């Protein structure tokens, strides 16, 4: 046991006292923070060049395009700047009014083609047609609405076009104009309809105003004062982000240390260090020492990240999401998860003779580790569904998924993570045992990687 400790200390120092470790210490927060920070940074870095749109208003009197032009004017003077007189952060929209002309099918197609050519030439960004019937009180029959978007419909104007706005462009991902125009035209069209129906606009707006909904936590009684506390505002984003962040952290911590550990085993094989070690330590003690060193590395990393996360959570008022209970389970599952996956990585290293071979051998292990990453969203949304419960009891997934279930408010019954822990413990012991057998034989094997059949034989033969 003393020798396993000597091995563990060397492994720990070899891992921690390197530049690579310091880099990986920084990389994880940078990856997470960087993606958020980069988005914030690039939010204002939009193309602010003026965008020109042709609008054909087929309604009688062409009132809507006028409204749209006025609204564009207002928008271009105020909304596109981050503050009055400040920096421009959105593109200006210019509305070019195009006469509707002939309503016949050929003529409409010809006009659409001409405008499309102007878009292709870069003269226009897109063009909008407002159907002639959009201000009428009698609208599109409900069942015809779907047909309007039917791609199989013959080309040319369909009868339903009367009740639609139609936008054509070759930049489908730029949707700011559509959203803006839809809102402006709808407001204007509604006003027209209220007037046509003889209803005062103010009264209609009052009658159809939406009912807002707020989400709160549960009400508690303050034991000190005996009064009821106001329930907190629930933040669904935070309740998703915290379990997701913990899961990511667990995944990273397992992989950050395991990969260099495996590379170390391969190095020991290639450099014949393994022989010297085995002349002094029993194979199982050697592996145990390596795993203990790995656990030390992971716990060090976890301490750095979690204290950072804990501080940040308190600072921004999310302290309740990173409770002591959640953090304790994190550490328990971290240790077990690192032992379980670490032993598999060690076995892969022992079964291969160079780093290239490990790539092929490693993917089944990586796949096991990644499965929780594919399903965690479902588990966060419904932590008590049958799927989530069963998935969180699969030992290879428990360290990540059970943790998510513990971290999502209101948490789960106390015995569930305990049962999960027992399962992981059993799986960890099995993995360490099997890896130890592979390690013992593989460590002295030179020349070629072991086949899966050989690996099984090493594990099960006496």
């Amino acid at each position, binding site marked *: 046991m*003393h*020798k396993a400790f*000597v*091995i563990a200390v*060397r492994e720990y120092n*070899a891992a921690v006292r*390197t530049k690579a470790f310091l880099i990986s210490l920084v990389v994880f927060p940078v990856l997470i923070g960087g993606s958020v920070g980069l988005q914030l940074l690039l939010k204002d870095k939009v193309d602010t060049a003026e965008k020109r749109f042709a609008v054909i208003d087929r309604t009688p009197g062409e009132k809507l395009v006028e409204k749209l032009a006025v609204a564009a004017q207002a928008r271009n003077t105020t909304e596109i700047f981050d503050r009055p007189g400040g920096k421009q952060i959105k593109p200006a929209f210019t509305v070019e009014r195009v006469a509707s002309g002939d309503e016949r099918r050929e003529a409409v197609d010809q006009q659409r083609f001409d405008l499309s050519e102007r878009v292709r030439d870069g003269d226009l960004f897109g063009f909008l047609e407002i159907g002639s019937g959009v201000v009428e009180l009698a609208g599109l029959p409900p069942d015809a609405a779907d047909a309007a978007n039917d791609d199989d419909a013959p080309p040319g104007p369909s009868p339903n076009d009367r009740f639609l706005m139609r936008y054509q462009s070759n930049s489908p991902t730029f949707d700011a104009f559509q959203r803006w125009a839809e809102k402006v035209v709808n407001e204007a069209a509604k006003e027209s309809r209220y007037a046509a129906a003889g209803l005062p606009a103010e009264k209609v707006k009052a009658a159809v105003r939406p009912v807002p909904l707020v989400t709160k936590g549960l009400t508690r009684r303050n034991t000190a004062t005996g009064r009821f506390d106001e329930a907190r505002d629930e933040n669904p984003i935070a309740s998703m982000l915290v379990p997701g962040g913990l899961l990511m952290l667990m995944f990273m911590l397992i992989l950050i240390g395991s990969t260099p550990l495996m590379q170390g085993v391969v*190095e020991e094989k290639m*450099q*014949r*260090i393994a*022989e*010297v*070690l*085995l*002349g*002094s*330590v*029993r*194979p199982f*003690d050697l592996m145990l020492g390596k795993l203990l060193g790995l656990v030390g590395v992971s716990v060090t990393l976890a301490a750095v990240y979690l204290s950072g996360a804990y501080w940040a959570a308190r600072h921004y008022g999310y302290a309740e999401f990173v409770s002591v209970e959640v953090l304790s389970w994190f550490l328990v599952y971290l240790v077990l998860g690192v032992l379980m996956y670490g032993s598999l990585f060690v076995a892969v290293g022992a079964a291969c003779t160079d780093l290239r071979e490990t790539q092929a051998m490693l993917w089944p292990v990586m796949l096991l580790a990644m499965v929780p990453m594919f399903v965690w969203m479902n588990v966060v949304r419904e932590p008590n569904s049958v799927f989530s419960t069963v998935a969180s009891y699969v030992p290879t997934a428990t360290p990540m998924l059970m943790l998510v279930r513990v971290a999502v408010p209101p948490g789960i019954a106390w015995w569930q993570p305990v049962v999960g822990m027992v399962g992981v413990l059993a799986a960890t012991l099995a993995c360490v045992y099997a890896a130890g057998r592979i390690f013992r034989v593989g460590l*002295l094997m030179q020349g070629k990687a072991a086949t899966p059949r050989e690996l099984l034989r090493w594990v099960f033969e006496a």
Partner: protein
Amino acid sequence: MTRANDTAVVIRGVTKTFGAHTAVNDLNLTVPRGTVYGFIGPNGSGKTTTLRMIMRILHPDLGEVEVLGGRTMRAANDRVGYLPEERGLYKSMTVRNVLQFYAELKGVRRARPAIDEWLERMGLAEWAGKKVQALSKGMAQKVQFIAAVVSKPDLVLLDEPFSGLDPVNLETLREAVLDLRRGGATVIFSTHDMNVAERMCDSIFMIYRGKKVLDGTLESIQAAYGSDTVRVRLDSNGGVPGSMPGVLKLTDFGRYQELRLADGVDSQAVLAALMARGRVSHFELARPSLHDIFVRIAAPETVVTAGNNHA
């Protein structure tokens, strides 16, 4: 029978196979304590496998290996030091740290003074803080040697310790090995250098295709291979003719020529025949060198009469 306390290693009827290949076949060997024992044999003949079994890194399929009186199959004997063939050091660790690590693995708590002493002795003192990857091959080999002996083991196993060393380093290491024996340790090393084996070893063991072919002191081995070798120098007319009756093999070393005589040929008759041809300035009944014996065994076409003239 020797008592257990007098022997460092006893190998009894050991066989080890890897798949279809038999690396060591029914091997028996006794290495007395306090001796330097040389393992020789061609590449792939089973030397390293034998050393690894003594080291308990490998377990024999059949038979038993007794090391320092112990028969447990547990690997990791703190009283045995081991130098593997080439490499065996962590490249990114410093010399002192890697030695410290290996010493601690052997259960040595305060190894620092011994390490510094050895580094000083091997001329590596100023390299103690440097990384292993900065060392030349010879220096790395010396560090590897220190790693094997720093824990003051009773038995030291060295796999090809002298290969690739320049004469100065070779001499340093040779001295160190002999010092170990003076200190009471048993040293077993494998080598391809027959000169080294001849000069250093109390006993020599040769393994060929997994089987023991030689075992004993140099004198007993040479005696077993007989006095069938004659070294001559002729002063005139170009030396010994290409073929002479009774001579199996002629090797010209320039300054002298070596003749291997056929079984039962009288060396005096050869001398007389040579004197009849010219002036003989040197005539010596020589024992075959270890090199010669090695080649006779390992190169099958030359094994004509070898081993037939046991006295």
